[in-house]
């Protein structure tokens, strides 16, 4: 599903590379936590998978494709198979919950009939049945993140990337979100989640990948958050 082959990434005007010689495999259906302190390279790791950045050295394979060889105009096609969730939800404040989810389908040209069927379904799945016509501003943080997850999942991606999805939420709400992500993972979707939330990582007992100053320092199945920072 995802393979990193001695991948390094340096940004211009920065002498320290963001990623150094990272190699790993993530299989289909896995649930992976990505941990590490701020600046350890987590975001760069995720951006490489999304092909927002290109690796400076080494090869990144996502969904069987070498991203270095993927031409620019094919990138959107590749991204349709990925779902993304962020700490700040990134919802459109002037659209209703249903419209926000539908937006993800409209912009890739899904037919209207399909959208009308898929949106209530996925909102039901994330536990927001009946809140279709609410505005994001009227919802709690947890609910907003559920909308974002619904939007990421509505196109049934093979891979869901979550960048600190619980970063803005209280522990109780976070547990709810994690349950949801776990459920999505059980449908066969690979989930990669960058997080600082020790409690969650320790509870879930999933594979843990730790980065430190751009290096892969730990890759542990059924791991824990690890060192205190």
């Amino acid at each position, binding site marked *: 599903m995802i393979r990193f082959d001695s991948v390094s990434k340096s940004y211009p005007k920065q002498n320290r590379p963001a990623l150094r010689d990272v190699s790993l495999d993530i299989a289909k259906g896995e649930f992976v936590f990505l941990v590490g302190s701020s600046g350890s390279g987590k975001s760069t790791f995720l951006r490489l998978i*999304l092909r927002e950045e290109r690796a400076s050295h080494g090869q990144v394979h996502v969904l069987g494709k070498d991203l270095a060889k993927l031409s*620019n*105009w094919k990138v*959107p*096609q*590749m*991204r*349709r*198979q*990925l779902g*993304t969730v962020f700490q700040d939800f*990134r919802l*459109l404040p002037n659209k209703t919950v249903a419209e926000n989810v539908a*937006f*993800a389908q*409209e*912009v*890739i*040209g899904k*037919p*209207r009939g399909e959208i009308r069927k898929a949106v209530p379904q996925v909102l039901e799945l994330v536990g927001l049945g009946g809140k279709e016509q609410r505005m994001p501003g009227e919802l709690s943080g947890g609910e907003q993140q559920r909308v974002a997850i619904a*939007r*990421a999942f509505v*196109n049934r991606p093979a891979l869901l990337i979550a960048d600190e999805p619980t970063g803005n939420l209280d522990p109780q709400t976070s547990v709810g979100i994690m349950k949801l992500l776990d459920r999505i993972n059980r449908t066969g979707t690979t989930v990669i989640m960058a997080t600082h939330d020790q409690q969650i990582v320790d509870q879930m007992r999933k594979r843990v990948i730790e980065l430190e100053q751009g290096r892969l320092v730990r890759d542990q199945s059924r791991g824990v958050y690890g060192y205190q920072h």
Partner: protein
Amino acid sequence: MRAQFVMSEIGVGLRRNLTMTFAVIISVALSLALFGGSLLMREQVSKMKGYWYDKANVTIYLCNKQDAQEASESNTKADGTPTQAAGVTTCLKGAVTADQKKQIETELKQMDLVKSVAYESADEAYKHYQEQYGHTALASSITPDQMQESFRVKLKNPEKYKVVTSAFAGRDGIHTVDDQRQAIDVLFKILNYVNIAALGIMLIMLIVALLLIVNTVRVSAFSRRRETGIMRLVGASSFYIQVPFIMEAAVAGLIGAVIACLMLVSGQYFVIDHGFELRTKIQIIDFMGWSSVIAKLPYVLFIGLLMPSVAAFLALRKYLKV
């Protein structure tokens, strides 16, 4: 579905930037109106050129008795002050003779350059003069004797009138060789400068319009970065992300172009045909008809549509990451 989505995005974008859109529309309208106007003016000038050049002759005026008399009189004057220069050096050998006339006519007809030669007798000249200026006081004092005989020469290539001038000026029996084109050329030169000035102003307006469009796109891309960011993440094609921006510029440009067209049409209607009624007031000038004006409108619309779109597209490459 797609079309409807795109249309609503454009509407939102244009309204969000209403003042900027307004500025784009106005500057596009002005620059395109100038563009269309100068196209029309060029056509008008070349039409007038054809018309006037065709009418304009090289006229060879022949000496009459009075010219000969004046010439000999002025030469006998002792002080030697140059009076009528042409009168002094020409017509010294008296009025034109029949032989000279014949000689001039055959020579003219032998020239490759000459299309046709028409002879006008003094009586005919007198008649024409009376027709044109008969109502003036001067006309009543003029007699047929005072009129000059002349050859009206039409050239195949009117630009080469100088050949005729140099061949005949100063010869016995010839008073002057007059090329009417010289006078007309001054007028056309002025019109040409006006046209160049209009094009210059158009160019400046066009640059202003383009800068405004680039700026509008930048503001627009910034205010919609949230949407475009999400579109990018869910895999909308770059074309799909860019289309609303480009269409926004195109719609503004098209509105500007339509306004420019209206300005041109109303210019023709109010200045030339009605209102000022230049067509009836200045009958010497053969003004363009509606077909010429309407023929320019597609160009104006096309440029109004294309130019802002290209500007927006180029601006997006810089301001919208896809």
